[in-house]
């Protein structure tokens, strides 16, 4: 049977009030002949969800842009769609408020349950999805939530950014746990390790997760304070430059005015920068360096980037030390060994 024959049957069915049969036949027609304007026009009235009718109208207009009747109908449908969406949002607003109060009162599980109920019925409520992303521990749920947000509002840049981050964490789940720890959110980190332990494919992975769970549980029981990552980087970057300063000070005979060696002092900023790079590469914390220098959107750096930064940092630390050693070597060339003091 060709498309013209099916179209004829579809028109007959539509005119005799057999709408479901007509819809199926018109769908068969557009499958066989995607540019059949008549079939698409009929479908604008026969399809059920509003979104599908809008899509059919857009299809008709793409085939025949001068179809004013359909253009007017599309405008009407779009208004209807907007109103329906607003009504849905208003309806869900009340529930979202309730969820917020649950969260504020620490009733997280009830909040999550209510959210899941709302989201089951094709929610267009951005805030509901955002709360779901915040509350859920599962990385897959977070990705699903942000996918829904960008579908509702494709212009939401922060949602796109979050989606990219969680897609990255989907591939590297341990990084997310480490991120929670850095932020001081031990509960979320702990829950994530539990999920990862449950999903662990072998005993060594499980043991790794289990160790982390025990470590975090201890930290929670002992009420270990959270230290900001920026402070950690600053603190750990100081050691190497301090060592270098003491070395140069000794090399100059503890008197930089009497025995000046300005070239050695020039090494201090180099060692400081090298030490900073080594610290950033060594402690796994989020840092702007990964975004600015390496275009890594997550700001955590891959293993390769870290190795590269660590090697650069090491070179920067070692170079002034080599100059220091060279200075010592040159001094040894002209060194007059003093007499043995206890042999007169």
């Amino acid at each position, binding site marked *: 049977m060709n498309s013209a024959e099916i179209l004829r049957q579809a028109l007959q069915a539509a005119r005799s009030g057999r709408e479901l049969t007509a819809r199926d036949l018109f769908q068969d027609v557009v499958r066989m002949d995607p540019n059949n304007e008549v079939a698409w026009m009929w479908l604008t009235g026969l399809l059920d969800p509003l979104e599908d009718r809008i899509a059919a109208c857009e299809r008709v207009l793409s085939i025949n842009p001068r179809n004013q009747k359909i253009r007017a109908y599309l405008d009407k449908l779009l208004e209807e769609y907007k109103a329906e969406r607003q009504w849905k949002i208003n309806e869900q607003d009340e529930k979202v408020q309730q969820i917020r109060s649950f969260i504020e009162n620490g009733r997280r599980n009830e909040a999550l349950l209510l959210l899941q109920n709302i989201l089951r019925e094709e929610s267009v409520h951005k805030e509901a999805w955002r709360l779901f992303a915040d509350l859920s521990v599962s990385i897959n749920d977070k990705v699903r939530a942000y996918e829904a947000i960008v579908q509702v509002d494709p212009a939401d840049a922060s949602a796109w950014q979050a989606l990219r981050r969680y897609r990255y964490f989907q591939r590297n789940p341990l990084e997310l746990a480490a991120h929670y720890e850095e932020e001081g959110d031990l509960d979320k980190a702990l829950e994530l390790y539990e999920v990862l332990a449950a999903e662990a494919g072998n005993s060594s992975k499980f043991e790794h997760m289990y160790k982390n769970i025990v*470590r975090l549980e201890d*930290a929670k029981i*002992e*009420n*270990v*304070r*959270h*230290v900001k*990552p920026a402070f*950690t980087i600053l*603190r*750990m970057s*100081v*050691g*190497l430059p*301090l*060592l270098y300063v*003491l*070395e*140069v*000070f*000794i*090399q*100059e*005979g*503890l*008197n930089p005015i*009497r*025995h000046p060696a300005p070239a050695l002092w020039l090494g201090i900023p180099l060692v400081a920068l090298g030490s900073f790079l080594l610290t950033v590469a*060594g*402690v796994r914390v989020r840092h702007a360096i990964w975004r600015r220098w390496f275009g890594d959107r997550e700001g955590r750096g891959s293993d390769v980037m870290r190795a590269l930064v660590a090697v650069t940092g090491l070179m920067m630390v070692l170079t002034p030390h080599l100059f*220091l*050693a060279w*200075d*010592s*070597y040159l*001094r*040894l060339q002209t*060194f*007059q*060994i*003093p007499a*043995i*003091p206890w*042999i007169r």
Partner: protein
Amino acid sequence: MLPINDTEPNRYSGFPFMTISLIALNTFIELAKPLYLQNTMTNWQYWEFMMHFYFTPKLILAAEGPGILSGITSMFMHGDIFHLLSNMGALWVFGRRVEDACGAWRFLVFYLLAGISADLITALVMYNSPTPGVGASGAIFGVMGAYLLLYPAGRIRTLVMLSFVPAWPRIRAGWIVLYFLGIQIIPALNMLFSDANYGVGHWAHLGGFFSALFIFLFLRPEAFARYLSETPV
């Protein structure tokens, strides 16, 4: 009183890689030294050797000789095998858990910093001394000081001779470290005010010990957070 072992387990890492490596390196150098210093060596040749590799405050102040290089080389050499054994014993007892709290490479930098600080204090206080100094004890006192700060309640298995009867109780680390610190003070003051010479670098020990305050720059993030929270590191 001879500390034998730290009885507490590690928290973060299983194997004290850097402590063992430092012990191995110091031992290797001490065993290799006789090959370099042949029996036929004259007093003057031995003196030359010391001037090149040992830390001599008078040379440092005059900015002559190897300078900082002697500070590093002297840190890995010892006077004799007993000097080596006592230092490495202390490094094993106190270094393992300090390394655990820092991580291997940061522990190495701290160890060097403690040794250099010990040299600096020696050069400042004994500025006129022509006597070359050698040994890892400055750095090891730094490690002991760090142990005291991080694990004051730790227990150390210690060999104690009660007359001729040996006993090995577990003594609080704080008491042991303070004992070793205490026996430095009077000789150090004596060296400063009456030019006494005991053949021991008491000021290096004190300098190394007080450089332990720098340990907070080297602790791993979790160990530092634990210290701030007044929970066991």
